[in-house]
């Protein structure tokens, strides 16, 4: 080698020179792991999607089971020890059995414990029949009363005596999937329009940019309300679901398209893209091998941040009564039950239980997206 003589040290020092030898993806993962809240949120989001997937397994009661003896029943606590007759206590998960009392003068219901009577609780108990993942018949439930005939309202009950906890768990499926489906639609529209805009530039770019500016300048809620109100009430639930999803995804794609366009524009002038073209790669290969991997991490982060926005949008529409309609159960339709202040005062859990669920899910998704974005951005603070 003719050059060996000038380079002995350079070769030797190469390992010392830059201690960082991890690949870009592992570096990103390491950075993400350091963002502890985001890391915890990743697990939380995973758990919520598991709830959505295995809803019936986690729900102790059937979704639509009404119960006249449970109308507006308040949440019941879980107790750990029972006292035996001899005074010793023994570990046994249980809830206290209750009965309804109606005050004759005010016509108000109240629930009082039946002394000495308990409802034993347990894991992997027998309950109603369902199909796990729409396939496997089963009647095992994760947690609930050991006797299938007992009912315990961990998060209270609604005006028909339906179990809120079970309804929230089943509602997870609709609410969380609307986010995912909506994001998928946004992704397709956003990436293709943004990509077209950024790659071709010129008048294509101009038209798409104007379109985006236009869409962004319309206040979303009136627009959605208009669109959602146009959905005939007689439509089957599934069709309503998809139309609502499409309406909701209309917000997401504009910002995504802008982001993709910006990335395309900045990447297009990047030397390594020019170099790839000069290496003989076709336009499509340049996009696939170089451009998309370069901004995929950002896209993933923005998508993660778009999911909660869509969840909130669905919730708002359903709450107003122009989104999803019962009998579809989503967090939004659950909250619709808590629309007037009198109901809330009588049964605050109707508001607080699904509300907390929404806030937790949205928070977790936001933290996750934030962590992903920080990890993807080499210049993050």
């Amino acid at each position: 080698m003719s050059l060996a003589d000038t380079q002995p040290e350079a070769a030797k020092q190469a390992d010392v020179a830059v201690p960082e030898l991890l690949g870009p993806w592992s570096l990103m993962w390491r950075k993400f792991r350091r963002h502890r809240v985001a890391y915890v949120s990743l697990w939380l989001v995973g758990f919520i999607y598991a709830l959505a997937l295995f809803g019936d397994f986690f729900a102790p009661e059937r979704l639509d089971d009404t119960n006249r003896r449970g109308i507006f029943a308040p949440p019941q606590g879980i107790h750990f020890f029972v006292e035996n007759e001899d005074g010793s206590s023994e570990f046994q998960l249980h809830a206290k059995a209750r009965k309804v009392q109606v005050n004759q003068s005010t016509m108000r219901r109240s629930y009082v414990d039946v002394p000495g009577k308990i409802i034993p609780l347990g894991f992997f108990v027998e309950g109603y029949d369902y199909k796990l993942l729409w396939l496997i018949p089963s009647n095992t439930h994760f947690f609930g009363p050991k006797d299938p005939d007992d009912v315990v309202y961990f998060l209270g009950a609604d005006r028909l005596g339906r179990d809120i906890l079970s309804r929230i768990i089943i509602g997870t499926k609709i609410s969380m999937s609307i986010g995912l489906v909506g994001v998928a639609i946004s992704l397709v529209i956003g990436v293709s329009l943004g990509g077209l805009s950024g790659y071709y530039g010129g008048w294509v770019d101009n038209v798409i940019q104007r379109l985006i500016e236009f869409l962004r300048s319309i206040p979303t809620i009136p627009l959605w309300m208009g669109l959602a109100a146009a959905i005939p009430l007689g439509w089957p639930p599934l069709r309503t679901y998809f139309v609502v999803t499409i309406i909701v995804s209309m917000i997401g794609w504009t910002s995504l398209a802008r982001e993709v366009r910006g990335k395309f524009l900045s990447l297009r002038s990047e030397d390594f893209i020019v170099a790839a073209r000069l290496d003989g790669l076709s336009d499509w290969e340049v996009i696939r091998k170089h451009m998309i991997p370069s901004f995929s991490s950002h896209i993933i982060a923005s998508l993660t941040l778009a999911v909660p926005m869509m969840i909130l949008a669905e919730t708002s529409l359903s709450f107003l009564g122009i989104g999803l309609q019962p009998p579809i159960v989503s967090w939004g339709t659950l909250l619709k039950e808590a629309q007037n202040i009198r109901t809330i005062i009588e049964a605050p859990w109707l508001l607080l239980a699904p509300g907390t669920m929404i806030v937790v899910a949205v928070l977790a998704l936001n933290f996750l997206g934030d962590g992903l974005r920080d990890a993807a951005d080499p210049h993050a603070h």
Partner: protein
Amino acid sequence: MSDPILKVRNLDKHFPIGGGFFGKPTDIVRAVDNVSFDVERGETFGIVGESGSGKTTLGRCIMRVLSPTNGDMTLHRKGKDSLDLVTADRARLTESWQDMRMVFQDPQSSLNPRLRVLEIVGQCLRKSEGLSGKALSDRVGGLLEEVGLRKEFLMRYPNAFSGGQRQRLGIARALATKPELVIADEAVSALDVSIQAQTLNLLQDLQEQFALTYIFIAHDLAVVEHICDRIAVMYLGEIVELSTTQDLFRAPKHPYTRALLSAVPIPDPRARHKAKRRLPVGDGGVPDKGCRFAPRCPHATELCRNETPKAKPMAGADVLCHYAGEI
């Protein structure tokens, strides 16, 4: 004796500026204007100029990263037909990109941070020769050794290299397709003094070894003088002087070249008291008519301000000045 590898004739590259959705461009920038030159096989042809002189645009037009507005360019390849670069379609261009390669200024941005060295250096071989697997890694490993890096670096990512090493990777990639012509655009400008010297040596060694022709674009006159055989000096899109290195540095003929040479600080404290030529500040704009350098030229006359000069061939050099040889 003359055996040009590249012929450039009357090349123009104009960029429209301004204008919105409805509007027409308000102005055009003539970034490269009526440029003609030949590059001889085996030589190092330098293009120097200050920022905004159009040297980088010119390099990118030759590579056809940018499409020229007007003019002709022909690449004469050994043992193959010659190629008209202006009219070539994508397939012919892709072919030309194997014989004509580019080394970029910023080794940081010209290497995709998400790909391994094997892929970065080897992707052109994958395309052009259909290599893959062991054959590809052997070839790339060999290339790495040729530029003074180790085979073992194949599976690393660019972030594991220092600036100088990255530029070596850029050079390895340029050499992968066994090109005849390499365009080095400010290839050593971003490097530290000591690394710059190593890289210049490497470029010279490789030139000898593989009989390469270089087009070396730079703003550093000392570097250009060191490595180039002939030099074109650009000012606001035009070549104002083109001559052999020796003539250019011994006896510059264009007033801009002279001013440029005299502005370069010389690393010898004893030279500091020599008389300096200082140019008045230009506003970067191009005058409507006449010589583009006239607003800053100490010798400008009415003729200069009104009539555009034509390139004057004199003693092996071309000078774009009405008074070439007189002042």
